[in-house]
C-alpha cells in the first residue's frame, strides 16, 4: 500500500510515523513478555509483538511475508503456546517472575546478541535511497521456492514431517486403554481427558481472599 505525503501538522512521512508506532509496539510488548508476572499475559503480549512485526513487513512492501507471519506465528504458533500454557499451568504456586530462574543466562545471551546486532548495524553500509523498490509477488516467491531452492524446501519439509511423527511417538501413551474394559474406557476422547484433570485447569490468578 503506497502512503502519500506527510502527516498533517508534523511534516513527517506517514511511513516514518507508522514505523515508529509499530516498532515501539513490538519492542514494548516484547519487553513485557519477559518481565511480566502473568504467563498468559506474556503469551498475549507475544501475540501483539508478532502482529506488530507483521505490520512492519507489510510496511516494507513484503505483504506475502506479512500474511505468512500472521497465518503461522499468530494463528498457529501463538495459539499452540497459549494452549500449552492453559493445559499445563497451575496457578497454585507462588506468583513470581516467570523467567526469574534463568535471568543470568538470559542476560548474558541478551548482551551477546545485542553486541552482535550493534556490530552488524555499524558494519553494514546502508544505502540511503533504494534504486528500485522490489515488488515481490506470490508468483515470484513460488518460482524461487520451487525452482532454484526446491531441494532445500523439500529437505525442510521432510525434517518437519519427521519432527511431527517423532512428537506423536513421544507423546503416545504407553497404556492404551482396552475398549472392552469399562473401567478404563474413555467415552469421548479429548473432552473427558481434559475434564479428567481438574487440578491442572488454571484460569487467571485467584483474587486475594477477603477476610
Amino acid at each position, binding site marked *: *500500500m*503506497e*502512503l*502519500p*505525503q*506527510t502527516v*498533517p501538522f508534523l511534516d513527517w512521512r*506517514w511511513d516514518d510515523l507508522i514505523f515508529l508506532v509499530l516498532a515501539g509496539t513490538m519492542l514494548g510488548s516484547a519487553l513485557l513478555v519477559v518481565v511480566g508476572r*502473568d504467563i*498468559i*499475559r506474556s503469551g*498475549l503480549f507475544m*501475540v501483539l509483538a508478532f502482529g506488530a512485526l507483521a505490520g512492519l513487513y507489510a510496511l516494507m512492501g513484503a*505483504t*506475502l511475508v506479512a*500474511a*505468512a507471519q*500472521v*497465518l503461522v506465528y*499468530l*494463528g*498457529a504458533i*501463538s*495459539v499452540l503456546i*497459549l*494452549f500449552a500454557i*492453559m*493445559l499445563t499451568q497451575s496457578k497454585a504456586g507462588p506468583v513470581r517472575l516467570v523467567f526469574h530462574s534463568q535471568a543470568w543466562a538470559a542476560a548474558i545471551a541478551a548482551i551477546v546478541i545485542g553486541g552482535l546486532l550493534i556490530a552488524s548495524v555499524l558494519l553494514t553500509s546502508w544505502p540511503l535511497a533504494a534504486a528500485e523498490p522490489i515488488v515481490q*509477488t*506470490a*508468483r515470484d516467491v513460488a518460482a524461487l521456492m520451487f525452482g532454484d531452492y526446491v531441494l532445500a524446501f523439500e529437505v525442510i519439509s521432510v525434517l518437519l514431517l519427521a519432527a511431527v511423527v517423532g512428537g506423536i511417538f513421544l507423546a503416545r501413551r504407553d497404556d492404551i486403554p482396552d475398549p472392552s474394559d469399562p473401567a478404563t474406557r474413555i467415552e*469421548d*476422547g*479429548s*473432552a473427558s481427558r*481434559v*475434564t479428567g484433570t*481438574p487440578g491442572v*485447569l*488454571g*484460569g*487467571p*490468578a*485467584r*483474587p486475594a481472599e477477603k477476610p
Partner: protein
Amino acid sequence: MTALSRPWNRLSLAGKIILPLVAVLIALNITLVVLWMSGLLPFLVQAILDTLGANIAILRFLLAATIILLITVPVAFMNIFFEMKLIAFVNLRIGPNRIGPWGTLASVIHGLKVLAKEDFTPRGVDVPVFTLAPAVVYLASVMTLLVVPFAPGLHGYDMDIGLLYFFAISGLGVVGLMMAGWSSFNKYSLLGGLRAAAGMISYELPLILAVMGIVLLSGTLNLNTIVQNQSGSFLDWYIFQQPLGALIFFIAATAEGSRPPFDLTEADSEIVAGFATEYSGMRFGFFFFAEYVNMFILSAMTAVLFLGGWNAPLDLAPIANALGIATPIDIALDPGSMGPGLLWLVLLAPPLIVGGLTAVIWMLKSDWSIIVSAIVAFVLFNLLVGGGVMLLLAMGIDWVMGLVWFLGKTIGLSLFFVLMRATLPRVRIDQLMGFAWKWLVPAALVNIFVTAAAIVVLHEIGRPL
C-alpha cells in the same frame, strides 16, 4: 459541589452521554458563529480541505474501514432475522411477527435489548483480557471483509494475496476465543475456549487445503481475478471443476463459523455457554454479532470461490442484444433538453397517474372507500417507479447487477446455514475432531493431487485449461 453532582448522579447513562454532547454542540455553534462573523471561516475551511486533499489515501482507507464496520450491522440483523423466522417455519411456529412488517425489525430490537442490559464483570476475572476478547473476535471477522469482492470495482482493497489475507486474519479469532475462555475464571469458560480453539484450528486445515485446487486452476491468490476467471455461463464456476473442494470447504466453513451441527463451542448441555458463560450485556452480544457476520463472510467466500461471485449464471448481454436492447443501457438522460416540459412532467405526471390508478382500483374493488384506493394507488405508483428506476440502474450500471447476484448467492448460502441449524443434530466433540483429521484433511489432499495431475495431463495432451 453537591449541587452539581446530585442532579448528575440522577441522570441515566444515556443522559450522561447526551448532556456533554449537547454542551459540545452549543460550544461548536458559538465558535462557528464567531468565526463567520470575524471572516476567518473561509480560510479555515480552505486549510482543512487542503490538509484532507494532501492525505487522500489515508482518508480513503478510513472511509473504507468505516463503511465495512457499518455494513456489519445490517448484515448481522438480517442473519438474525433469517434465523428466527426460518427456524420458526421449520418448527411450525409463526416466529417474530409484531415489530415491523413480518417481524423484520425484531432483530433490531434484540440488538437494542442487548445494548441496554447490564454489562457485568464478575469478581476474579482478568479485567483487561476479559474486556478485549470480544473486540478481538469481532475485529478478526470484520477485517476479512476488506478483501471480499462485492461487485466489479466494489471492494475494500484489491489485494494481490487476498486469499492468504483472508485465512490469516480469520485465524486470529482463535486468540480472542482463548482470551475469553481463560480470563473468565470459570471451568466451563476455559473448557469452551479450549474446545473452540481446538475445533477452529483443526478445521482451518481442510478449509485452506480445499481452496488450493482453485489456486492451482486460476494461478492467483487475488480474489477479484478468481471471480473474473469464472465469468461466462454457470458451467464456468469452479464448483463444477472442484466439486470435492467445494464440499470440503463448505463443511469446514460450517465448523469454522461454529455453526450447527458443529457448534461445540456453545453446547449448552455440556459446557453451559462455553467461552461466553461469564459474559453479559453487549460484550456477550459482540461474540454473537461476530458469529453472524462470520456466517455472512463464509457464505460470501463460498460464493466468491465456487459459485462465480458477482457473475450472472447466464450471460444476459447476448439475449438482450438478440431482443434489440443494447447493453449496457445508456441512461444518460438529459433533463435540460426537455425545457419547460420537464417541469410539467414532474408536476403533473405523478398526480395524474395516481389519480388514474385510484379510479381503476376503486372501480375494481367497489367495497373499498375512495381514500383506501387512493392510498393503495399511491403505494403502487411508488413501487412501480422505484422498481423501474432500480431495473434501469441494474441494467445500466454493471456493479449494481453484480451486487445483486453476489448478495443473492451469499444470502442463499446463509439461508442454507440456517436450515442446517434447524435440521441437523449437534455432533460430539470427538466425532468433530475425528471427522476433520481422518476424513476432511485426507480428502482435501486427494483433491489437490487430482487437480494437479489433471492440469499436468491436460497440458501434456495439448488442451490446457
